[in-house]
């Protein structure tokens, strides 16, 4: 059973990617629908398997570590696989309708889309550092290609900048990995963590950790390394922006978090943890402020990503030097933040795309009258905004609540101020959009009304991000599925 599922998980996206290279946009779209159904079946199947038999290590093609490719399927990985299926399918369905098939370059969307998906799956279940790197590279290259899709000068410029940042990040990460391999002769994350704990002077590994974290932070667009993100996410086609903001930046963060939770406690210092947290806090404030200043709708949403990513990095101080239950609270909070941001941000980018389609341009002040004539599109945007502001009952609030609890329990009250203040700041930029759309200037409906299906996709994702707030415990229970240490 597990063989079939793993094969389905890793090889169908790759197979679909190569096949759709040969197809035109419409054929690629038909194939993509099939692929989405397959991914759904596989990820639900894996959840069932892990629930029944516990998480497991899996060696690809029977080659064991340290030679082979080691995969680790646990509750957290399953959570993210399910999330990916949900969000990527939503974006894929939206893209299939949103992108015009008549442009010749559009057919490259599907191969890139599936390469991206393959990379994401690899990262979620990757068990060794090199394998994670491969997944990350696959994601980065596909993402850069997707940004460049469309070929205007501005898009190309943004894509090039993105590529540069991604490569720099990869280099730093790879250097760290090389240092580790030199020390331990293995790349299996579990094995490395085990050995580090046995070392007398674990702080010798600090340079490697710092290199890897810096590289991953650059790829995740942590302040002050976020400069590449807003142009890239702002200029890309809306479904692409949605994919990038919702999933791609989370992949590099996921690796950083995995490394930190395995080895951070012994290698890093309190000072490092607090510094990373402080950068996250700065990202929250700076990103929200810039989001508030942006005249263009998609830039607002893109800068909001910079701010929301900042919250994720509170994981580092909140899991360092605290007791196990507080650390667990922080991890649960961050997981909820990843999920709710993925759902809300994809919904928001898709809704923004619909609004831009309707209004005809990207400016915030062109939205006047939208609430009267296009209530449905605005509503999905609005619901996603509720989650971003962290207001109840939404996934964003659930995440914030868990993080607040963890900050309280660990006595790091300053993060409470960041969390609560950050919510108010994000309310400022979200309500700016509402305000612009509630203004009523003239009585005529001069808007283009987009395809209803486009709006439904955005709405479903937004509702999911909201519903997460009422089902937080249920979602977290997937993450907590047992893992059998078979190593």
């Amino acid at each position, binding site marked *: 059973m597990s063989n079939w599922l793993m094969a389905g998980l890793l090889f169908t996206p790759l197979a679909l990617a190569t096949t759709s290279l040969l197809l035109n946009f419409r054929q690629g779209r038909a194939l993509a629908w099939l692929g989405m159904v397959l991914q759904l079946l596989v990820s639900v199947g894996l959840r069932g398997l892990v629930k029944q038999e516990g998480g497991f290590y899996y060696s690809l093609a029977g080659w064991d570590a340290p030679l082979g490719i080691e995969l680790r399927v646990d509750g957290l990985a399953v959570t993210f696989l399910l999330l990916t299926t949900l969000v990527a399918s939503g974006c894929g369905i939206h893209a299939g309708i949103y992108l015009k098939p008549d442009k010749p370059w559009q057919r490259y969307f599907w191969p890139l889309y599936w390469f991206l998906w393959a990379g994401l799956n690899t990262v979620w279940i990757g068990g060794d550092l090199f394998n994670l790197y491969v997944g990350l590279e696959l994601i980065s290259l596909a993402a850069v290609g997707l940004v460049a899709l469309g070929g205007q000068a501005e898009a190309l410029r943004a894509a090039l900048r993105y590529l540069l940042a991604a490569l720099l990040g990869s280099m730093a990460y790879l250097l760290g990995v090389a240092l580790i391999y030199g020390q331990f002769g293995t790349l299996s994350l579990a094995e490395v963590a085990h050995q580090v704990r046995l070392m007398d002077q674990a702080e010798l590994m600090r340079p490697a950790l710092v290199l890897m974290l810096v590289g991953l932070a650059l790829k995740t667009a942590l302040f002050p390394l976020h400069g590449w993100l807003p142009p890239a996410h702002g200029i890309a086609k809306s479904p692409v922006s949605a994919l990038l903001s919702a999933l791609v930046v989370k992949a590099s963060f996921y690796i950083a978090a995995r490394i930190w939770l395995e080895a951070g406690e012994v290698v890093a210092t309190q000072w490092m943890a607090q510094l990373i947290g402080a950068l996250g806090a700065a990202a929250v404030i700076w990103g929200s402020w810039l989001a508030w200043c942006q005249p263009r709708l998609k830039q607002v949403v893109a800068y909001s990503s910079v701010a929301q990513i900042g919250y994720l990095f509170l994981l580092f101080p909140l899991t360092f030097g605290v007791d196990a239950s507080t650390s667990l*609270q922080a991890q*649960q909070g961050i997981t909820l933040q990843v999920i709710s941001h993925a759902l809300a941000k994809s919904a928001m980018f898709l809704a923004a795309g619909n609004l831009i389609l309707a209004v005809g341009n990207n400016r915030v002040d062109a939205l006047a009258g939208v*609430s*009267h004539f296009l*209530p449905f599109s605005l*509503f999905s945007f609005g619901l996603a905004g*509720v989650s971003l502001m962290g*207001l*109840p*009952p939404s996934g964003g*609030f*659930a995440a914030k*609540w*868990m993080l*607040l*609890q963890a900050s*309280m*329990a660990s006595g790091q009250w300053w993060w*409470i101020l960041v969390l*609560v*203040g950050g*919510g*108010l700041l994000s*309310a400022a930029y979200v*309500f700016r959009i*509402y*305000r612009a759309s*509630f*203004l*009523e200037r003239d009585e005529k409906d001069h808007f283009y009304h987009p395809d209803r299906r486009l709006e439904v996709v955005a709405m479903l994702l937004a509702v999911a991000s909201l519903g997460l*707030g*009422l*089902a*937080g*415990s249920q979602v*977290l229970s997937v993450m907590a599925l047992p893992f059998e240490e078979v190593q």
Partner: protein
Amino acid sequence: MTQLVLIPILALLSSMLAAVIIFALPEQRHRLRTGINLLAALIKVVLVGVMTWGVIHQLDYGLSYEILPGVSFELQADALAMMFAGLSAVLWLLTTIYAVGYLEDSPNRSRFFGFFSLCVASTMGIALAGNLFTFFLFYEMLTLSTYPLVVHRGTEKALQAGRNYIIYTLSGGAALLLGMIWLQGLAGDLSFQETGQLVDLNEELHPQLIMIFVLLVAGLGVKAALFPLHGWLPQAMVAPAPVSALLHAVAVVKAGAFGIVRVVYDLYGIEFAALLGVLEPLGWLAAFTIIYGSVRALAQTDLKRRLAFSTVSQVSYIVLGTAVFGPVGTVGGLVHLLHQGIMKITLFFCAGNYAETLGIHKIHELNGAGKRMPLTSTAFTLAAFGMIGVPPLAGFITKWTLGTGALNVQMEWVIGVLLISSLLNAAYFLPVIHRLWFQPEYDWSEQRRWGKLETHSWLLWPPLVTAVLTLLVGLFAALPFSPLSWAKLIAAREYLP
């Protein structure tokens, strides 16, 4: 037993589902929308009635499930909850009728009634919330669902009011959240419980508990329009009249006052709060707000703004009653939760009628309106007399009980506050009444006529009903099920035996 879980959920869902259906309906389906709205409102009244019956018979309505590790989503119907739920259910029905008449032929009705229903669903959730966390969920939902109503007209001015409303209420929400998380850290997830929950905490924690109290009351005080957090309320007057009615009588302001009552009685416990010494400052703040609101009301020339400042003043009676330690004072505060709602909604309905029928916004334009609109003006007069505290109307009952309660516990200054405030109430309401009945008719340029009646019948009935209620709850205050008896029932359960 399942009905005990089902009924509170249904009471929430009745308006929640109505909202979803209304949003989904096309804008032109006015009749269907009105039908669904009224049906949902009626169902809610019935459900709340059933629950009230159950609460008297000591049935335990409620449910609780873990929503996040460490906290639960908890609904419970106790006597206090039913007081607020009953108020909002009955007034929602009337306000819906009124709003249908008021907004006839205006745009964006689908959006309006959708958010209107959401707003009432949130209010119901606030009433039934079984712990602070659940309360907060619905409290913030209320903020979000009222925003589109405040900015409904889409004018620059409305949007500006909406902006201020959001700044005030979200900051209040943030203060509340801070207090909540702090309390959660100290004491864990606490259900609301009669006689309170925090007595058993270590004495070293008392200073922290006082600071938490300040944060919670500051957060709730924004919605309750306690001085100096009341600035949003007069500005929100640009909203349509049914929204003002909702803000002032049914939902927003009441949610804040109700929250303060919950925190004092069912979280801290009145006796413990008195021990901490937080009640007296709260009482002084409420007293100041009462006088301040009345003085500001005097100076207003716009009818709705005068009523708004009057709300600032009147809602603080509830807080004052909460802060007066002693069962009779408690009764006075609680009963005003209902009385203020009934009287204020009458006044706003009437103000809306004047604006819609005669185009009246300023007070001096009311001259002689009594002859042109006798029924509306009678309702207005009754409610205004009630506010002043003329016996045997609702407001008199409140003031009498509050005064006796204060005397019982040697807080004579409260009597002074009541006297001054009543004089001020008279000073800003009597001239209005005088203008209505005894001045020559003003020349209204924007008059509209609706058949035989003085105004649209859907606009006329709701204020008449609530005006009669103002009289009845005062006259029959001693009967069972009157607000006063219900408040006594609650007070009997709040004090340690």
